């Protein structure tokens, strides 16, 4: 045999480790904007919001908690951005106690960026206990169901009665709401909104859910009860792409795509090496 030469079979694991690390870190530093194909439910959601005339009021239902933030927060951010871009006014209402501060985290910087004013351009009504009962109450009267707002922490605006908030003077029930975006991690959430509100008040509802929960809601999209659906980080990334502001979801999906492809390449490479060595061994025997 020839002299000792580089043998790819014993490729150092450290090379694999380095490549993985780079593949994760690089897209975070430098978003690569790999092609993302927008799936129909996401396109539907985007189109529905695009069609709303400027100045209309949209509602954001935030029903999630910190453990599902990685998946759902990018959706909330992108929806608010999308609304502000199109000069829509946003009312936030939550059925989960943990949500209002999480939504607030997205609202604060975006309101600053777009120069939106609390109370006239957007309002955070905070959390109200009761689930379905609260939803039914909102169907009758939103200000009666949420008598005070959550306030706007970053601007030191304390909680106050909705009667004192200019935006809320224009909101009585779902006739005044052009679109509801429900970001939901469980119950009460998307299903309750569809059953209690969509069927009764004929308001368009779009939803964002975790990747695990999404398959349960695809039937509602095909039946038209849901106007669009974002499923997990992938759905969020597609939405970011459409709105034109690649954020955390896009970066994350970039990294995921690259690493997944890299692992597949490793596997293929490993097999090429394996097949070659098989052949060589067989040659040696003959």
């Amino acid at each position, binding site marked *: 045999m020839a002299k000792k030469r580089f043998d790819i079979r014993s490729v150092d694991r*450290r090379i694999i*480790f380095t490549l993985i*690390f780079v593949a*994760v870190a690089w897209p*975070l530093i430098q978003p690569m904007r790999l092609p993302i194909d927008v799936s129909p439910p996401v396109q539907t959601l985007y189109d529905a919001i695009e069609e709303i005339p400027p100045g209309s009021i949209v509602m954001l239902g935030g029903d999630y908690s910190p453990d599902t933030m990685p998946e759902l927060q990018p959706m909330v951010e992108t929806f608010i951005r999308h609304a502000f871009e199109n000069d829509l006014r946003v009312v936030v209402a939550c059925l989960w106690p943990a949500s209002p501060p999480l939504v607030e985290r997205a609202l604060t910087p975006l309101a600053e960026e777009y120069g939106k004013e609390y109370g006239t351009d957007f309002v955070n009504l905070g959390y109200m206990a009761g689930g379905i009962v609260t939803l039914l109450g909102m169907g009758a009267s939103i200000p009666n169901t949420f008598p005070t707002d959550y306030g706007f922490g970053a601007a030191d605006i304390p909680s106050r009665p909705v009667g004192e908030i200019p935006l809320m003077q224009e909101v009585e029930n779902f006739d005044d709401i052009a679109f509801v975006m429900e970001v939901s991690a469980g119950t009460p959430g998307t299903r309750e909104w569809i059953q209690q509100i969509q069927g009764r008040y004929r308001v368009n509802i779009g939803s964002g859910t975790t990747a695990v929960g999404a398959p349960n809601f695809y039937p509602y999209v095909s039946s038209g009860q849901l106007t669009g659906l974002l499923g997990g980080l992938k759905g969020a990334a597609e939405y970011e792409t459409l709105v034109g502001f690649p954020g955390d979801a896009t970066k*994350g999906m970039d990294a*995921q795509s690259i690493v997944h492809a890299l*692992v597949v390449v490793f596997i293929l490479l490993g097999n090429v090496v394996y097949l070659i060595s098989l052949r060589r061994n067989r040659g040696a025997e003959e």
Partner: protein
Amino acid sequence: MTFIWTTIGALLTLSIYSFLYKDNPFYKFAEHLVVGVSAGYYLVIYYFNFIHPNVFSPVFLLRLGDEPISFFGFHWWMALIPGVLGILLYTRFFPKVAWVGRYALAVYVGGYAGLGISPVMQARVIEQLRANALSVAGVEDPFATMTNVGLGVVIFAVVAYLLIVKRNLGARNWLGKVAVIVVSAVVGYAGYLVLTLISNAGVVSLTNILLVVGLLGTLTYFFFSMKHTGALGGLARVGIVFLMVGFGASFGYTVMSRISLLIGRVSFLLHDWLHLID
């Protein structure tokens, strides 16, 4: 202050990652540190969360405010029972009475064994059977005929591949390998057509057959008291095929969540610590 703590966290993070290069003093330090921290942590937390409220308080402080639930009504001495059971575990240091502790353990394990049996029967046998039967009966089939067809292509290709490789047709040279691929593709395409016909006719979906055959095969693989020969052996082999596809698929499925963990740590390093990215 926050920066100091973040830096400590970041340095510890890097120490763990240095393990990927090779074992080194930094990793050893981090490893021994986390063992010590967690030992101290659990020692304290177990006391405050379990022993103090449930044993110490009721027995010594007679704080009856947060009384534990009890059929007999609450009596302070009842809190002694778990306390004594806990202490019995320590009899092992005294050889003469060590057997007492051993049986205290047996009682504990026996209780939990009893507790586990019925839910396992319910959730892992009956519910699984029912779910499988429901899918097969077509009551709950989340994926419509569309996936049928796609899956059909894969199955037929795999079947073709297995058939050919098993019979050693053309496994020797490149020409033979190409032939294998071509034949698989043709069989796969034929399968695609057949399945389209079947699902258009609405007879029974292939996915249902897959669920039945898969479960049957896998269960057969776990037959211990019969020799795996003949038809039984064939079914067991089918079971292995399903197990392998299942393992491969869930391996691939898990990659994403593991990468997410790494993304989390990398953004801790780059964002929270170094402020390199926003």
